[in-house]
């Protein structure tokens, strides 16, 4: 059993070293457990614990914390799996897939991941304006302008943080989050 775990560990490490390219090239089912989508989904899921939203972000006190994924159904599926039955910041978590073509559907999200489709992104960001939504864009997917941006550093998926932007959106980011960001832009 320990041997099996050690093997998985090594596989996981390799996946990181070779990055998404390798993942994209090889559609082997053995690697799907550590795919780029899975890593990003896990990050999105975990982000909920490192951010504080104002009460105005929720329509009602018992409202769930929604993680909305635009345009990456694979990521959505993983997040949906991770969040099922889970809590963060005292709320149930829920995953939603939003349509990039319909920016009006994103106003009730707390985390909005814009994974691809750079054309629709400006409209969606504009729709959100200064609403308390943690926007996450993905440079690998060609999207920009989110409070948090996934970047690829040395084959690892990391992120940068735009602090000013987070303040504009009335969000408080944990210092632990800032500590692990590749860069924190003002």
């Amino acid at each position, binding site marked *: 059993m320990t041997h099996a775990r050690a093997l998985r560990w090594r596989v996981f490490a390799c996946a990181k070293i070779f990055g998404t390219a390798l993942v994209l090239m090889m559609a082997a089912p053995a690697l799907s457990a550590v795919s780029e989508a899975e890593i990003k989904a896990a990050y999105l899921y975990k982000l909920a614990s490192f951010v504080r939203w104002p009460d105005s972000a929720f329509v009602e006190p018992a409202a769930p914390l929604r993680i909305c994924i635009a345009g990456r159904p694979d990521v959505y599926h993983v997040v949906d799996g991770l969040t099922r039955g889970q809590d963060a910041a005292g709320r149930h978590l829920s995953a939603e897939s939003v349509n990039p073509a319909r920016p009006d559907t994103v106003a009730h999200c707390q985390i909005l991941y814009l994974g691809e489709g750079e054309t629709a992104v400006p409209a969606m960001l504009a729709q959100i304006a200064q609403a308390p939504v943690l926007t996450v864009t993905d440079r690998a997917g060609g999207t920009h302008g989110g409070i948090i941006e996934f970047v690829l550093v040395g084959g*690892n998926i990391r992120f940068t943080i735009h602090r000013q932007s987070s303040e504009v959106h009335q969000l408080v980011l944990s210092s632990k989050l800032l500590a692990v960001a590749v860069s924190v832009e003002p």
Partner: protein
Amino acid sequence: MSTSGGRLFRDYRMTTGVLAVLLLAVSLVLAWQAERQAGLERSRQINVQAQILAEGVAGALAFDDRSTARELLNALELNDDIQAAGVYGAQGEMIAGYVKQGDPLPRHVRPHPPAIAGLALSVVEPVTQGTLKLGNVYIRATVEPWTRRISRYFGIGAVLVMAALLVAALGASYSSATAANQRLQEEIAAREAVESQLRQAQKMEAIGQLTGSVAHDFNNMLMAASSGLELLEKSADPQRTERLKRGIREALDRGARLTQQLLTFARRAPLHREVFDIRQRLANLSSLLERSLREDVVVEYDLDPALWAVEVDPSQFDVAVVNIAVNARDAMPKGGVIRISARNLDRAINGADAVSIAIADEGGGMTPEQIERAFEPFFTTKGVGRGTGLGLSQVYGFVHGAGGTVAIESRPGMGTTVQILLPRQEHAAPVAEPEPAIAPADDAPVHWRVLLVEDDDAVAEFVEQMLDELGCTVCRQPRAEDALRSFDRAAVDLVLSDMVMPGMYNGLEMARELRRRCSDLPILLMTGYSSAANSATGEGFAVLSKPFTMATLAAQLRELMSSDG
């Protein structure tokens, strides 16, 4: 005593032993307590370290940031107390870690509070963010090595051990001191026993000496008296008779003085304290004194005319003066002057006024050793038969009995002065009553009928003759019972009885009975014992102390008859 003493030492030794052990036990408990405190403190420190690491590593675990985790561990690595540290993921897999010392990092960990395993203290702290479980951190710290801990306690430990040893040593030395003390006590007791045996032996020797010399003296006196009487019977020359009579008298005086001295020494002589004037007393004594001395010895008087009165037994006073004067005479074999001086001294005896009587001679003097021993009974430098060594002891007994003091001042070849201090009597001396022994009583014959009760035939005969001489009619009864049975008040004017008699009643009991029957009957009791005399006078009976002269008897009878009617 020695067994209880032994138990005592064992007790001391045990007590101090227990004390020392207690001291050590208390210090061990204190050390253990301090050790435990230190251990808890260390656990707390390690726990805090683990919490800090868990806080710091949360982001890195959440977002797979190995380098951040590594940096945090590097910071921890600077702490020398931490042997190993590791960061584990949510699945329990190790993300990063280091080992500086000891066992490798465990593959998998589960959260647990600080726990000691072997020489290490390890803790696993969960890493969480809100409700999100991100993994665990593991920290292993060195437990302070025994050597370091022991060296920490060594100083205080050494002091404590020394204190315990000191207590034990003190206890041991105390018990040995007590043992030594007890041995000393036992030795002292043994020595005292030996000393008392020695004293007893000395006393026996002294009594032997006394018996010898007293017998010798008495023999001489009896010899003198009986041969004198024999010669008297054969002699017709009045001058010679007179000389013989004087010789007999002197011998008898000496005998009386000797018995007086023996009684004083035995504290048996009846005491008749009287207030009197020393001047007068010495004047009356002078003729007797001159008779006791030799022609070549001259007595000079230097008496303060305003001497205070004293209250002592006058006859004992006389004997004391004669004893000192006789000693002075003996010290001057070629003759010389005896100076008797008397004067008042303010606050001389313990702050009380006293009369001093000093008797000085021009004799050979005494050595300091002789002065020191002179008052001891039977101490004499005169050969057997010449001195009994009781003269000064009588003086001492008399003076101390009277509440006074006596001292000898002398040096060899420089003469001797014996000074007597007698306490002053505040009441003035009564008008000097004529002394029956010296001043002859009124000689008119009396015609009283006397009942004489006396068991001793010789004494009875003698007393009977005396009474006869005085003009009395005597009826003698040898036993008290007989006297009581045949008693007839009408036939008796007075009763003269011995006190110590064999039979159903003694003299005092008979006297009581007679007084009960006839309260107006004059009774005179005779005795040579002071205790008997005291109990009789205590009951109001007149007492005549033996031996007595005819003059004393006559005076006593006259006084009794005149006061009784």
